[in-house]
């Protein structure tokens, strides 16, 4: 049976009473503490009531208030319902446990979020840059990113 996101939130809350999950009405999404994201992801994938077998998208976010984050868009082929999870971490220590063993597709999504935003996904099997050159400095989609004057002797600004 498909569930609304409110019903899924209540169900997850009953499974993780200690986790202090929050529901954001505006977006809407479920905010999960970083330390628990892998457990919640595994539960969301394997629980017979949820069966989120597909990670449609994983995005890195700079919230512009000294925090970074990751957003997980989940979809269930069986139940035909959707769920959005959000993790918020401080920009000074942006560590989030990797979910690439839960959904294999997360591997390169996490690499992209690491490359452009600088979120570090602990446990990712291959956390290298994916789009930018390996010797690039910084994470260019951060709000406070400043374009370098030169890259390998090539002038960058117009």
């Amino acid at each position, binding site marked *: 049976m498909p569930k609304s996101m409110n019903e899924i939130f209540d169900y997850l809350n009953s499974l993780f009473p200690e986790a202090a999950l929050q529901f954001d009405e505006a977006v809407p999404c479920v905010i999960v503490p970083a330390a628990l994201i892998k457990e919640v992801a595994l539960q969301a994938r394997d629980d017979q009531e949820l069966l989120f077998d597909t990670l449609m998208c994983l995005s890195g976010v700079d919230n512009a208030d000294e925090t970074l984050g990751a957003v997980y868009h989940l979809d269930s082929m069986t139940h035909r319902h959707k769920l959005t999870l959000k993790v918020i971490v401080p920009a000074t220590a942006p560590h989030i446990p990797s979910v690439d063993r839960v959904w294999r597709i997360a591997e390169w999504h996490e690499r992209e979020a690491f490359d452009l935003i600088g979120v570090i996904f602990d446990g990712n099997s291959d956390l290298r840059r994916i789009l*930018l050159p390996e010797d690039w400095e910084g994470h260019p989609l951060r709000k406070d990113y400043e374009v370098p004057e030169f890259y*390998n002797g*090539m002038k*960058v*600004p*117009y």
Partner: protein
Amino acid sequence: MGLLSKQFDDGNIVLTSVEGVLNWARLCSLWQMSFGLACCAIEMMAASASHNDIMRFGVLPRPSPRQCDVMIVAGTVTLKMATRLKRLYEQMAEPRYVVSMGSCSNCGGPYWEHGYHVLKGVDRVVPVDVYIPGCPPRPEALLEGWMRLQEKVREFTLVKPEGQHA
């Protein structure tokens, strides 16, 4: 002035200079290194297709830089690609030419201000002979640019021009 205008009436004789015949041969067989990087590459392919048929100018796309005379930089040159582009240009045999096709490779195009990753003009890494404006340029524009390049090859000289001394 074309080559055949100097032909004698009585048959199989053409009077020209060595440079003239060498340049004529070269400008009629400029082999192209395909460097399709973005949407400009689609127009470059359209120029090769039957409507425009750039092959009638002797343009032959080659997969190796060592067999090419001209590099058509068609599209957005990222900084990551610029390193490779310079390496491939250096592998081409001289004399070699570069055609910069489209706004992106001319000056950065729409990425000129906020494109942290885009090279603002391919002339920052390799010397460019012909710039073709447009976003993307139509195949006709590429043909026009190609004929400009042919004019440039026609003027090529092995000896120093008069009035210039080392």
